[in-house]
């Protein structure tokens, strides 16, 4: 059901909402970009509507709202282990269609690939998603190519338009809150086409794995891992055991985001690593996104948000690599 509000009304409702919920949304972090006097848009907890960046696609995805960069698995005190508490409040996560499609991928790994993940699950179950529409395509995304340009998995759709705000609430509890507004038909803005079009390779063979393209791009790669860290579908982590400097018998185990492009990712005790070569890492990443995830789960991992292209300091275009690979495989 859709409702219309004035922007002021919406701001006021939102402020109340932000008391009951932990609201995670893209925020412009002034000067926090890689370079001096450059901003970054990333997720943070917000308490008012005007903190939210609705226009620019976030540089880092929503995923940290579900999967903290650092997450404590348990504390240990001598021989005992204690699991930290889960979220105290339900949470709202503002995101776009591509990202909401990415939630499905996170669920796939964390809930449906072997064991269920205790930590993800308890947060996920308390999370509702608020869709931000896309009136026009961003410059680097190719969601239409990946079929992730639309979604109906949102609990709320919220749109600001001039002095007005529109919502469509699907979640019952949220509907309660917004039904005070003027009823109006509201349907999300989705793009149907992007500037970037990606055609996935059709016939991937063992030969594909040896494509010179991986070498070419691998040589350009500096193994910084940004492509993974901004990606809404990358889920890897590493375990870290910390001992407290004040009492070395106590500490905690954490899981921390990991990147398949960064040194050490495949390294086992004794120092042997399995993908020392950048070409192999590049292949591994790309193939995961457009080939083997699909092989295992039946649909592609990549949601075409384009963040990896935007963030790469070496201007490696994953989308271009995929298109070139597609042509090679024809």
């Amino acid at each position, binding site marked *: 059901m859709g409702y219309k509000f004035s922007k002021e009304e919406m701001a006021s409702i939102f402020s109340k909402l932000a008391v009951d919920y932990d609201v995670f949304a893209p925020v412009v*972090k002034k*000067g*926090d*970009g*890689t*370079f*001096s*006097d450059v901003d*970054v848009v*990333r997720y943070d907890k917000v308490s008012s509507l005007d903190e939210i960046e609705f226009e620019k696609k976030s540089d*880092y995805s929503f995923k940290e709202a579900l999967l*903290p*960069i*650092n997450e404590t698995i348990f504390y240990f005190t001598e021989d005992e282990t204690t699991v930290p508490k889960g979220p105290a409040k339900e949470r709202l996560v503002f995101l776009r269609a591509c990202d909401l499609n990415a939630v499905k991928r996170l669920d796939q790994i964390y809930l449906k690939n072997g064991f269920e993940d205790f930590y993800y699950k308890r947060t996920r179950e308390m999370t509702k998603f608020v869709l931000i529409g896309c009136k026009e395509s961003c410059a680097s995304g190719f969601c239409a190519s990946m079929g992730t340009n639309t979604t109906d998995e949102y609990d709320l759709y919220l749109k600001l338009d001039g002095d007005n705000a529109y919502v469509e609430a699907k979640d019952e509890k949220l509907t309660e809150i917004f039904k005070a507004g003027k009823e109006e038909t509201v349907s999300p803005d989705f793009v149907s086409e992007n500037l970037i079009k990606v055609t996935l390779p059709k016939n991937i063979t063992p030969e594909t794995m040896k494509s010179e393209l991986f070498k070419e791009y691998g040589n350009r790669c500096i193994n*910084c*891992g*940004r492509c993974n*860290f901004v990606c809404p579908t990358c889920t890897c982590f*590493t375990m*870290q055991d*910390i*001992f407290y*400097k004040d009492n070395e018998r106590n500490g905690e185990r*954490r899981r*921390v*985001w*990991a*990147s398949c492009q*960064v*040194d*050490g990712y495949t390294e086992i005790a004794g120092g042997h690593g399995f993908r020392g070569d950048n070409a192999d890492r590049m292949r591994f990443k790309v193939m995961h996104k457009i080939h083997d995830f699909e092989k295992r789960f039946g649909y592609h991992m990549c949601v075409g948000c384009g963040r990896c292209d935007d963030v790469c300091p070496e201007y490696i275009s994953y989308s271009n690599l995929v298109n070139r690979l597609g042509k090679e495989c024809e």
Partner: protein
Amino acid sequence: MSLDINTKKAKKNAWRITKERGIGASRIRVPGGYCDAEVLGMVQEIAQTYGNGYVHLTTRQGFEIEGIHLEDMEEVNKKLQPIIEKVGINQKGEDKDKGYSASGTRNVSACIGNNVCPFANYNTSNLARRIDKEIFPNDLHFKVACTGCSNDCAKVRMHDFGIIGQTMPQYDPMRCVSCNACVKGCQSLSVGALRMENYKIVRDTEKCIGCGVCVTKCPTRAWTRSEKKYYKLTIMGRTGKKNPRLGKDWLIWADEDNIVKIIKNTYEFVEEYISPNAPARKEHIGYIIDRVGFEKFKEYALKDVELMPETIMNNTVYWDGIHFDNQH
């Protein structure tokens, strides 16, 4: 009439009296090197109309138009007017169409800065232009340069005042993924002030030079720049025949306003202590300090300066360099 030119005035008017009799060169300066492209055409026109068609690009970020007949100085000065205005140099009303009002204080130079450069910690050209506005016109021999980071592409350590951009890196351990990029970056590109401890970064605050490499290397925004911009002030470096030497750090983690104040205060110091025998009142500040003592300099320089609590000031600065004046 034979050429009858007050060369001292001409020099102060930013003209060079060249080695070729009767020939001068017009020294156009561009504060901070930040140059509206329009200026290029203007310089070209002067060079082709009055000069020999060649222009020397100077390492102080100016143009030196070669081969101008000294008779044409006045006319060329008129042609310089739009350039002076375009690059935004201070000028008294009566000096309009008369070229540069002074030349002793050298062009405030700057690396390309954070307009463009990924490593720069501030907008060097803007600061250079601000300082230019504050100190020009002035005929005392001051060399000031701004550089975006400790790489010092502007070679500020060869200046009386070198301003090196710093950022006080801000670390959010909860965004850190222990990828080591900052540690490696600091080790290979900077001073190795970072180490990993318990999967998190420990910054050696004594060693850290505030270059910001950690920030640029961080893939997760665990490292970000401080909101405040910081500057290192190196002082009294110089080239030259007697005792070329590197400027040494005096203030670390200082702020822009105080640095500007210190530079202006130093003009008063020089006015007071410059050698009366200095040819054309040109004596490097460093030599004046060598003569009258660092404490006296400090007394002047720090007038009305209230440093931020985080600013580190070295109480004494020791220079070395190479001594050709009193060797063996």
